[in-house]
């Protein structure tokens, strides 16, 4: 029973990873790529780790998989934030069809 549930979680995770990587290839500029990739790939990998936790239950490895979920979550969101700020300050242009840019005003 728990094997089946964990397999379902892992399959969902791999499918989300697939969506994220398609976004990484297909979207037009670095900001949009970061949007799709960081959300989908993070949740997909968290889902794989949660499937691992369900399979092994409350043992040493299951708890490690459970602790890795918030760690991965904070690490990837903060890394995405740093990357998007860095690429704006580096001077990479937004996509041509961008509608609005409020952040331009606070750059010196």
């Amino acid at each position, binding site marked *: 029973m728990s094997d089946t549930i964990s397999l379902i979680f892992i399959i969902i995770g791999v499918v989300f*990873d697939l969506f994220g990587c398609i976004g*990484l*290839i297909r979207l037009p500029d670095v900001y949009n790529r970061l949007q799709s990739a960081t959300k989908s790939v993070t949740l997909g990998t968290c889902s794989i780790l949660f499937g691992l936790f369900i399979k092994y239950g409350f043992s040493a490895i299951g708890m490690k998989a459970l602790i*890795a979920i918030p760690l991965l979550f904070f690490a990837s969101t903060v*890394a995405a934030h*740093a*990357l998007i700020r*860095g*690429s704006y300050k580096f001077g990479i242009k937004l996509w041509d069809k961008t509608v609005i840019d409020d952040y331009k005003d606070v750059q010196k």
Partner: protein
Amino acid sequence: MIINLLLYVLIGLSFCCFFRVVFGPSIADRMVAIDIFGILVVGICGLLVLITGRLFLIDIAIAWIILSFIGTITLAKYLTGEKLDE
């Protein structure tokens, strides 16, 4: 085995990231691809625990999360042009 199939899918996705690393038009695209590749490796480690049954691989996954985070932060700092201790 379905888990082996999923492992092959994840390895294929890593090659998608390598496509971005090689052909990315700007430097930021390459860094994004490296960041995403680091997260995918954690998933690959998780699947390898299920396939091989070696339990230390989850420790490698946790260590990989932290190292990938530090590497990405350093590269992002390099992009902004600030000093590293600001």
